[in-house]
């Protein structure tokens, strides 16, 4: 007689320990309508109407309800090669140098599964989008972490540009086992945009140690005035060793469409394509058609104020500044991001005593849970984005998302204004 919980029904080793996830802990919060949710990163503003219309039109065409090309629907990959051809200032082969995937997430997964394995080390910069570490582990490799460090001692006017890598520390992380370094620019959660010289320093190390670079650039269009997004793949010697990840969800405010792409040289992309053809084969057709059409429309407008890529950034700058001001007046210290749609804020100055909540969790986890309960405001603890060794450095920070309607921000402002009234 065999026991139902059979030893053979145990999970495969590759997913050992990867079942926990910060979102599982905090997404149930989103269901409670009385809570102002600035936690999970998705817009509550509508996507541009022409993108939705494009999808409705695509769904009316019979052929577009059936399978399309596995590595990317032709309309979409051609549009991507046009848009990014201009951005990279190089000819991009739509069929060999681009792979369409299930969101930026799927892009990262294809990259890891294709190019990373047991025995490899992968350098990850803290704080990092939380999936990087489990993906590296699932590929059998070892994550090697290095934190961004705050170089300013000021208590106001902190920006994401004040968070930098220590160059010697970074160089020390590279060795002969290093297969790749993952960078995320603009960074989630800090919002840092790596400058050309910072990227050059990383590039120099990649070339010196002959490693790959996986550049997560899903927030590439959300660049605030005065800053420039630089693609590390455009630096000399980097095209041949870099995979760059992009996202339709972040580009067009349609996170629920789950479409993304990897762009890189054929000799790397073909391995990602092998993963694709053995994992999910193809992405939804009508969604790809709609994104392709949307991209073509905005391609024509690139550089003009009408272009959604830049119009969205302009709209978000106002929200960013509003949020920073709201947080500052409570006594918290916001880190104003140069890009992206998140802001982290230092809550130290509030001196909130949370000893009654025990000591088995970092301060920011306790703070967020307390804030949800007592203030009806949700955020995400930043230590969810760092390794154990860096917890002390980041546990006074929480992350807020500001790509929200004015009414949501109004509700947040009301809570923050009343903060010190107990």
């Amino acid at each position, binding site marked *: 007689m*065999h026991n*139902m919980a*059979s030893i053979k*029904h145990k*999970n*495969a*080793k590759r*997913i050992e320990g*990867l*079942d926990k*996830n910060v*979102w*599982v802990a905090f997404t149930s919060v989103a269901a409670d309508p009385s809570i102002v949710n600035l936690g999970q990163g*998705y*817009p*509550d*503003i509508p*996507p541009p109407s022409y993108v939705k219309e494009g999808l*409705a039109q695509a*769904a009316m065409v*019979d*052929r577009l*309800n*059936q*399978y*399309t090309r*596995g590595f990317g629907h032709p309309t979409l990959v051609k549009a991507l090669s046009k848009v990014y051809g201009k951005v990279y200032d190089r000819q991009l082969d739509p069929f060999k140098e681009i792979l369409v995937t*299930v*969101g930026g*997430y*799927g892009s990262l*997964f294809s990259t890891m*599964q*294709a*190019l*990373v*394995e047991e025995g490899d080390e992968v350098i990850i910069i803290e704080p990092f989008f939380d999936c990087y570490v*489990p*993906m590296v582990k*699932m590929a059998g490799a070892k994550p090697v972490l290095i934190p961004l460090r705050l170089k300013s001692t000021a208590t106001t006017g902190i920006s994401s540009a004040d968070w930098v890598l220590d160059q010697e520390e970074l160089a020390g992380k590279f060795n002969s086992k290093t297969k790749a370094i993952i960078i995320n620019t603009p960074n989630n959660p800090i919002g840092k945009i790596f400058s050309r010289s910072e990227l050059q320093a990383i590039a120099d190390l990649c070339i010196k140690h*002959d490693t*790959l670079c996986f550049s997560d650039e899903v927030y590439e269009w959300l660049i605030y005035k005065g800053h420039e997004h630089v693609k590390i793949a455009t630096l000399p010697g980097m095209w041949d*060793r870099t995979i760059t990840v992009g996202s339709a969800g972040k580009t067009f*405010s349609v*996170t*629920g*469409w*789950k479409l993304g792409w990897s762009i890189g040289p054929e*000799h790397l992309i*073909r*391995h990602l394509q*092998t993963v694709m053809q*053995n*994992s*999910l*084969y193809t*992405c*939804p*057709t*009508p969604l790809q058609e709609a994104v392709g059409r949307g991209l073509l429309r905005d391609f024509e407008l690139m550089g003009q104020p009408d272009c959604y890529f830049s119009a969205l950034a302009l709209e978000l700058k106002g929200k960013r500044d509003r949020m920073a001001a709201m947080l500052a007046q409570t006594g918290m210290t916001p880190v104003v991001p140069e890009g992206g749609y998140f802001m982290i804020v230092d809550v130290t100055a509030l001196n909130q005593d949370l000893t009654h909540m025990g000591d088995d969790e970092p301060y920011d986890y306790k703070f967020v849970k307390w804030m949800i309960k007592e203030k009806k405001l949700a955020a995400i603890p930043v230590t969810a984005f760092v390794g154990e060794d860096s917890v002390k450095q980041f546990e006074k920070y929480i992350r807020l998302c500001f790509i929200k309607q004015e009414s949501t921000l109004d509700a947040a402002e009301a809570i923050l204004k009343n903060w010190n009234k107990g």
Partner: protein
Amino acid sequence: MWRRVAVYGPSLSVRLAIAGFHEKGIMSRRLHARRLEGIDKNIWVEFTQLAADYKAVNLGQGFPDFSPPSFIQEAFCNALTGGFRMHQYTRAFGHPNLVKILAKFFSRIVGREIDPMEDILVSVGAYQALFCTFQALVDEGDEVIIVEPFFDCYQPMVMMAGGMPVYVPLKPREGRGPALTSADWVLSPEELASKFTSRTKAIVINTPNNPLGKVYQWEELQVIADLCIKHDVICISDEVYEWLTYDGAKHVKIASLPGMWERTVTIGSAGKTFSATGWKVGWAIGSGHIMKHLKTVHQNSVYHCATAAQEAISVGFQREYDVFGTEDSYFHQLPITLHEKRKRLADCLKSVGLKPILPQGGYFMIADISNINVDLNDPTTKEEPYDYRFVKWLIKEKGLATIPVSAFYSPEHRDQFQKYIRFCFVKEDSTLQAAENILKQWSENK
């Protein structure tokens, strides 16, 4: 060692390049992960391109060329205009409306209470459900039994998970004359039993089967179930064509057999269910203690599936739940429509000397081409199996696309099954007519 490539110059580079060890002289180490070894080839990439290049009448890849039912298209349009949430992330393991209706719908069929949150994972097509299953449960050294002929992805997926495929063939029943229907192709219980070892982690079955169209009967599934229970093995049951059975054949879910719910992962597909393959929504259903591992893979690979399509499919399933068993049901109407098309294609193939094997279910029909003599004088395909060469010839010379059946056999057994090609009959009548015209003309000119 690698860094001395540049010093030694081109001859070493050339040797390393031939060994696949370095790519453009930029990176000198091997780039791809070992898990990709041997799984880079794929018939769909090759044959879909060929069919497109030659603008062939396409009875190859399995997708309908008619539209999905209007109620599902309407549901999609309604979802798109259904507020901002439809365009943002939904619940990672499956949109609540969808998992709830799937649980309700299949609980009624399987005869047990399925928990929408614990027992169901929504995936990017059945393909990704299969991927999650293999990645979650198969470790290096595990054996996975695969019944031949099999949907081609099972083998590379098992390999990518580090597992070892062990094959067992469906074979024409002995002593019954020519095997004219898929019902005549059976497993030998003794041969099947011999494939189970202490290393067997899982067995993959596909019913209705692609490409053969076999619909496993209760007794056949019982034999498999007995072995799964005896050897404590997981059963992965790919049932994407579950609604498409003909001639009164009944689709049976192995998960509903005694002792099987707790060890079975059942895979389904909205694409095949609602004739919308391009929506790429599928699911895996099984006991929570197994499903939680598939969820771990899912949350570390794609995390979410597209929201609007899930919403539309939940509406479709609610509608089908309400009209289940009645004439209005799409699950009732589609197999009737396809029954006709199946007959039509079979008759046409027979009339031109091809020997079809009538499928009891699914999208496909295979036909024996051994009686056909053509001069396959294409030097570019010389090294390939006969059916590959025949199919390519048929595309290029006659403008008709099909798929070679040896692609659905293991590398070990491919040689023995080079005389069958696969046709998809889930096509508009005009497409089937065009195919008929090609075949008739060819037959007349022979």
